[in-house]
């Protein structure tokens, strides 16, 4: 129970950062915090009271925890670092074009937006 709350709090704080912060690097840090929370949540779902790690040891026969979420989280961790790297590369590209990584400034610089965009090529 406490594990669920802790994991979901991490996701919640990550969401809070995404919702309120304007700095793109900060937003991505928030997403990476939320990712940690998601991983913790998945592992908590697979926990069994009194279980041991899902690795057979010679001569020992104890109940084990669920190995499936562990396999899923292994995948999710790697996917998380991959998306983080790609997103950071895009942020570096944004910095190169706009000179800043503050979202509201960038939107102001992209002025014109929907209505004023008349160039057809």
């Amino acid at each position, binding site marked *: *129970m406490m*594990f*669920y*709350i802790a994991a*979901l*709090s991490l*996701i*919640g*704080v990550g*969401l*809070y950062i995404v*919702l*309120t912060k304007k700095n793109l690097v900060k937003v991505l840090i928030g997403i990476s915090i939320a990712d940690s929370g998601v991983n913790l*949540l998945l592992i*908590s*779902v*697979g*926990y*069994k*009271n009194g279980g041991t*790690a*899902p*690795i*057979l*040891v*010679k001569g020992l026969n104890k109940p*084990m925890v*669920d*190995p*499936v979420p*562990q*396999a899923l989280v*292994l*995948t999710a*961790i*790697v*996917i998380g*670092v*991959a*998306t983080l*790297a*790609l997103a*950071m*590369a*895009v942020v*570096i*590209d944004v910095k*190169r074009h706009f000179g800043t990584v503050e979202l509201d400034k960038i939107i102001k610089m992209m002025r014109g937006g929907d209505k004023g965009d008349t160039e057809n090529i």
Partner: protein
Amino acid sequence: MRLKHILAWTFVILFVAVVAYSFSAEVPFGHDLTKLAKYYVDNTARETGIPNFVTAIVVSYRGFDTLGEVTVLLLATLGVIGILPWEKHEKVKKAHPVLLWGIRIVFPIILLVGAYIVIHGHLTPGGGFQAGAVVASAFLLYLVSLSVHLDLDNFAYTEAIAGTGFALIGVAGIFAGGAFLYNFMPKGNLFDLFSGGIIPIVYILIGLKVSSELTEVVSHMMKGGAEQ
């Protein structure tokens, strides 16, 4: 604190409360094993011949996910290369001798640890991903010390060959046993180093691929892309 922040915090607290409630109501913490988990706990050792069940699931039962996962890493590499292309940096700044010597001593030890983790991936905790990350962090140490230039082409070749090996082992399974990634090699004895059929081979290939991909990603993040 402005209104927006208060609203956001309220939303977050509501989110946590609702989701935590439905989790603890319907998926109680520490609940008994699910149908899938029971099957794995009972049958993995017999069906795959290795004692580490997480490895068995990652490489064998859900090996296709893992193939997808190394593809995701490849995509991160491709995207980072596409967005921040590598440019030859001629200048090499010599690091402080203490750092240099320290790295020379530590580097082979880290590589050795990585090799141990990946080779015993089917017996003890660890495996291709963990070893890949450990090896990549060794190269990261090299990069940070600024004392060498990594030849990224070699990493690309390693990654290409390892990845292709993984995919082709999978395709070979179709012809050998009628299913992609079918374990067509003898499984050997439980707890032996040489056991589990294709599992250790695939995990070593994954380790090679992950380590070279992560190294490429990190070095492009560090130096790639023309500065303006």
